């Protein structure tokens, strides 16, 4: 299935309708969002989205082309197959007694409280997946996970 996933970096206008338009275009063409992250871009008034989209039976390049048709979309870069830095973030609350194993994996403590310790961990999708699997063994109180943030590697 991963052959059907496109990874796109999308620069958009910060307008009230932008996310609706993008998700609408993706839905209408029969694509499916597998991961998304949104944050302000360097330019004021603009946001950068990282999208992982399953294009189903449509031609791979259709995702980029359909997004480019939207007036709110300023630039679409298809990063699929490129050498990239990709990071996802997970924040989890666990009971203090279980902390040791997570710290060995590279988690960082954010805060400690009576009902548990909150840690953060970031990494490639697979690493984050493995970290979450590990969490499951240690009694998670709560967990939140981000979509990917992707940037092309410099040569």
């Amino acid at each position, binding site marked *: 299935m991963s052959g059907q996933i496109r990874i796109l970096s999308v620069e*958009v*206008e910060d307008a*009230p*309708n932008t996310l*609706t*338009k993008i998700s*609408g275009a993706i839905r*209408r063409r029969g694509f499916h969002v597998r991961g998304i992250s949104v944050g302000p871009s360097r330019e004021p008034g603009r946001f950068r989205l990282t999208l992982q989209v399953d294009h189903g039976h*449509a*031609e791979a*390049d*259709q995702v980029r*082309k*359909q997004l*480019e*048709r*939207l*007036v*709110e*979309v*300023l630039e679409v870069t298809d990063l699929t197959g490129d050498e990239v830095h990709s990071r996802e973030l997970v924040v989890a609350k666990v009971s203090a007694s279980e902390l040791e194993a997570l710290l060995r994996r590279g988690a960082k403590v954010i805060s400690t409280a009576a009902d548990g310790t909150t840690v953060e961990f970031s990494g490639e999708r697979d690493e984050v997946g493995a970290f979450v699997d590990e969490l499951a063994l240690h009694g998670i109180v709560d967990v939140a996970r981000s979509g990917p943030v992707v940037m092309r590697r410099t040569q």
Partner: protein
Amino acid sequence: MILEALEREGVEYIFGYPGGANLPLYQHLPEHPKLKHILVRHEQGAAHMADGYARASGRPGVVFATSGPGALNLVTGLCTAYMDSVPMVAITGQVPSTVVGRDAFQESDVIGATSSVTKHSYLVTRIDQLPRVIHEAFHIATTGRPGPVLVDICRDVQQADAERVTPERLAIPGYRLNGHVDLEGARQAAEALAGAERPVILAGHGVILSHAEHQLQELAEAAAAPTGTTLLGIGAFPVKHPLSLHMTGFMGTGWNLKAVQNADVLMMVGMRVDDRVTAKLAGFAPKVKTFIHVDIDGSEMGKNVRPQIELVADAKQAMAAMLPHIGELNPGRAAWLTQIDAWREEHPLRFKRSNGRLQPQDVLIDMYRRARSEAIVVADVGQNQIWAALWWNYDRPGLFINSGGAGTMGYALPAALGAKFARPDVPVWCVAGEGGFVMTAQELSVAVEHQLDVKIVLLNNFSLGMVRQFQDDFYGGVRSQVELTHMPDFVKLSEAYGMPATRVERFEDIAPAFDAAERTKGPFLIDFRIDPEANVYPIVPIGKTLNEFWEAPES
């Protein structure tokens, strides 16, 4: 300020309907006599009228509607325009910005409801946005691949005082126009076309929108390439031209489909290559080695058929760039043209006159004999649409208007009225079945109020003919909910609106009825009681390839 902006954009007609959320616009309308407002009887009628106006004039159609139900009634009309790339600007009133999101009276999320059927849309909540937004809306609606743009304006913004502002310079960084032709691609396309043993060109609505009919004809002649059109491309290439393949697609002519299915190079210009053109995609044009696709919208490339040569450009510029590179033609060309002529002889358009009933084709043949290429035909959707497409010999663009992509029943009457507003000098014929006609028949008021010289040809078969034909042929012969009983007496209905009408049941009454229509100034309706068993042919059965088309029984 909105009305001033519309005047600046050169707007002549507004098709609209007032209501609570656009009252300020209507309050000031009388101060702008240059803006002629046509009061419709349903907002859907306004959208189709603006659509017909736009297709007949080449200028954007403008629509007004109020919030909530008013704006939502536009959705079908916006979708019709969107699917067929028709320039339109719809200005809808929205509840005051202070109550947006609170489920106010007649509030609805119009932007949300129309996003997928508009090229772009704006919600205006502040007066300072207005001049820029109106100017952008017209720019986006009319440039590149045209389409409808919706501007939803809160009522308080319509009322706000503002100093007269001239629009800022356009700055729409996310709006890309594909202007430049890839010259290397154009050369390759020309060489492929000239070098082909069995070339075919298919032309769509894009050729008409880009006014590229002369370039198309020059290219077809230079390359000696048989040329057909899509339903919406009708008129882009003269039907009686020796190279004409007439209409393509699953109700296209037999010789067209034979040509497409045997071509080795297929050039598709200004078209989406949708399922009505390809029929079963896996068996579409199976002998083609080189598909050439020309379209101004890059997302059409490979959406349905992957081209070997793609030109993302305006059809006129692309074909003009190809022309100088048409060199020596493949020596097999003469044999190919002979083969096409043989198919044309072998698979002519035909229909059966056997059961003594009035045949729709006879009606259209008589109509064409009178009107030639001097009239605009606006067709509805269904059998009437395909008969009107196939049985007139359209020889230039703009004479055949119909809802091709969306297939909107009820389109013809309001669109014909819009076309007449745009071209008062040209005869306009509305061809509709009785099923579609009653969906928007209330717009007869507009025809009578403005004494629009539109002749309505009702092909009345007492049923939903196309659905009935599909049920007969492809759905087990079960006729389900296709008989239209308890329909009005259309002559009396016309008279109730204040316009003359007549009824025709026999072949010999066709001509006198048309004579009466032509003698009458203003609107006129003819209720043709046609053979309810009349079918559309050729037709490709659902799920089959273009090779498997059925023809009309021999008469």
